């Protein structure tokens, strides 16, 4: 493990921010204040952060309907995101996109996406742009286990190999696509990475609930792709602590399943145990971070609540640059 103290603190802060953001949304949504469909990232934090900790603002990612974690890990601003999810004029997208469509091009975050599988070819395109510039930058697509049954995902993988695009396909296998298990819906469920290999690209597998495993694996992957070897795929084994969307009754879960996942597969707990046992950080360090994060989220919610709603005239803006 070659991570500095600052890097470790930073990684924990980013994971804790996502966790706190999502837990708070879970509570607020239950109160009925937030409109629309929201898909929480709780449980998958180590995946987003372990991946994005290798990326700069000029590396490009595309994300999914479950995009908050990817956005936050890529550096999109917490308060803008919260305001967006609250549908405020001050939100990242002025309240026009909401939870499912947060983007921040300046941060290399090309968009969450409501259409499963749609992001994969876009990541290829971003990678082709980077390849044109020859600057070592990459495109990266996050998708779920379910998304790997959508035609666009396959086309994107094939096209990436054909064009030797510097792109990484990260599959977060959280064992559910909505209410269906991959053992049913993904014919080769135990091996999504194997599909990528069948397209002729190198694939890695890692424990997406373990920041360190994800981070170390991604280092290898990034080295490989930035060196000009073409695309790569990574399957991360991870867990979703809440329902598919907020309000999902989750009748497909086994008895006690969520309690067990929270006890055994919590990436924040695992991180804390690992760094404190190794004497790299103290519990107090992490507690401080959690307290700071909690304050930030409080502020974000307060500010979002107080922020102005978009005005009706804004409906007509931003369709075209000129028309």
């Amino acid at each position, binding site marked *: 493990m070659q991570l500095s103290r600052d890097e470790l603190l930073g990684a924990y802060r980013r994971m804790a921010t996502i966790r706190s953001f999502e837990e708070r949304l879970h509570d607020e949504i239950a109160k009925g204040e937030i*409109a*629309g*469909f929201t898909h929480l990232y709780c449980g998958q934090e180590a995946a987003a952060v372990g991946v994005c900790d290798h990326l700069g603002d000029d590396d490009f990612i595309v994300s999914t309907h479950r995009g908050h974690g990817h956005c936050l890990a890529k550096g999109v601003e917490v308060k803008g995101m919260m305001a967006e999810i609250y*549908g*405020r004029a001050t939100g990242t*997208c002025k*309240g*026009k*996109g*909401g*939870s*499912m*469509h947060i983007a921040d091009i300046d941060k290399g975050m090309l968009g969450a*996406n*409501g*259409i*499963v*599988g749609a992001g994969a070819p876009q990541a290829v395109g971003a990678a082709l742009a980077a390849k044109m510039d020859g600057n070592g930058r990459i495109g990266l697509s996050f998708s779920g286990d*379910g*998304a790997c*049954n*959508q*035609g*666009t995902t396959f086309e994107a993988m094939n096209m990436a190999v054909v064009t030797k695009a510097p792109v990484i396909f990260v599959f977060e296998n959280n064992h*559910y*696509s*909505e*209410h*269906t*298990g*991959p*053992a*049913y*819906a*993904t014919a080769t*469920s135990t091996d999504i990475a194997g599909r990528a290999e069948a397209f002729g690209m190198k694939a890695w597998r890692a424990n997406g609930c373990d920041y360190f495993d994800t981070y170390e694996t991604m280092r290898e992957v990034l080295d490989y792709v930035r060196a000009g070897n073409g695309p790569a795929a990574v399957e991360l084994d991870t867990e979703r602590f809440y329902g598919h969307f907020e309000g999902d*009754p*989750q*009748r*497909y*879960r*086994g*008895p006690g*399943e969520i309690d067990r996942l929270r006890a055994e597969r919590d990436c924040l707990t695992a991180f804390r145990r690992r760094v404190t046992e190794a004497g790299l950080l103290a519990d107090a360090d992490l507690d401080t971070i959690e307290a700071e994060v909690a304050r930030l989220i409080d502020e974000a919610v307060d500010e979002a609540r107080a922020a102005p*709603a*978009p*005005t*009706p005239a*804004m*409906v*007509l803006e931003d*369709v075209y640059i000129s028309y």
Partner: protein
Amino acid sequence: MTRMMIREAILETIRSEMRRDPTVMMLGEDIVGGMGTAGGPEAIGGIWSTSTGLWEEFGSNRIIDTPISESAIIGSAAGAALAGKRPIAELMFADFVGVCMDQIWNQIAKFRYMFGGKSKCPVVIRLVYGAGFNAAPQHSQAVYSMMTSMPGVKVVMPTTPADAKGLLTQAIRDDDPVLFFEHKALYGVKGEVPDGDYVIPFGHARQVRAGEHVTIVAMGMMVGLAEKAADQLAQDGIGCDVIDIRTTSPLDEEAILDSVEMTGRLVVVDESPPRCSVAADICAMVANKAFAALKAPPAMVTPPHTPVPFARELESAYLPSPPKIVDAVRSVLAYR
């Protein structure tokens, strides 16, 4: 007559048609739910509760839960129909037609024509559409205008539980491909539904209100808004002839033209953006075929030429509403 919600009328109709005709089958994502999970099948029965219990009764050969692969869903329905079945395919959100448009537009809609009349393709595609849930630009669209432009498919839009039953029964028994649009905000609407066999033929509009001053043509979710507007206008002595066209393809031109011949004024209310919309289509048809009767320009009330925005305030500004319809009617009436 039994009182029920639209979603119940849909589920009951599917169930009874499946009992009646062993060639009826259904495909879609999570229409069983829980496949391959610890919770086991029937964990959800369709996220809109329009297929609950069907898998238990009809089994995996006839109720097919699918991966997230809309082209394969619609393509499979197409193939099964050519092979003699009557598949009902569900698109959880109508907005997903984008990933399976070819199978609808170039395949299902064209088979019979391309094959010189030697095939039939009795597919029903159920599409859950519409705004009002703050579901943002990719989960809120009124896709029916685009589909109405396509020769070879019929486009159906129920607005009441009784119509849902009658029109869906017709759709399943119809030998042509049918796109059946279910508005997510109408699922909970309750009403009396005729018991037993109940079929409404396509191409017959429903008169919702009678009135002599202006014709309001609407469809789907817009019908309720038009009714509200008509109620309000009635207080000022303005009589609205409100027509629910029920199917945009075929279109009951006669019902619309008869009404306009009487009123001389037309307002069309449509949830799709204005360009090349059903509203524009109807205005053009009326302007062409009832020109002499028109006393004022045919008018339309639609959202603006923009995607559907997310935030509550934006979405309500975007959508047609009773006040907007009232305004349109008043300005049509004020025309000299």
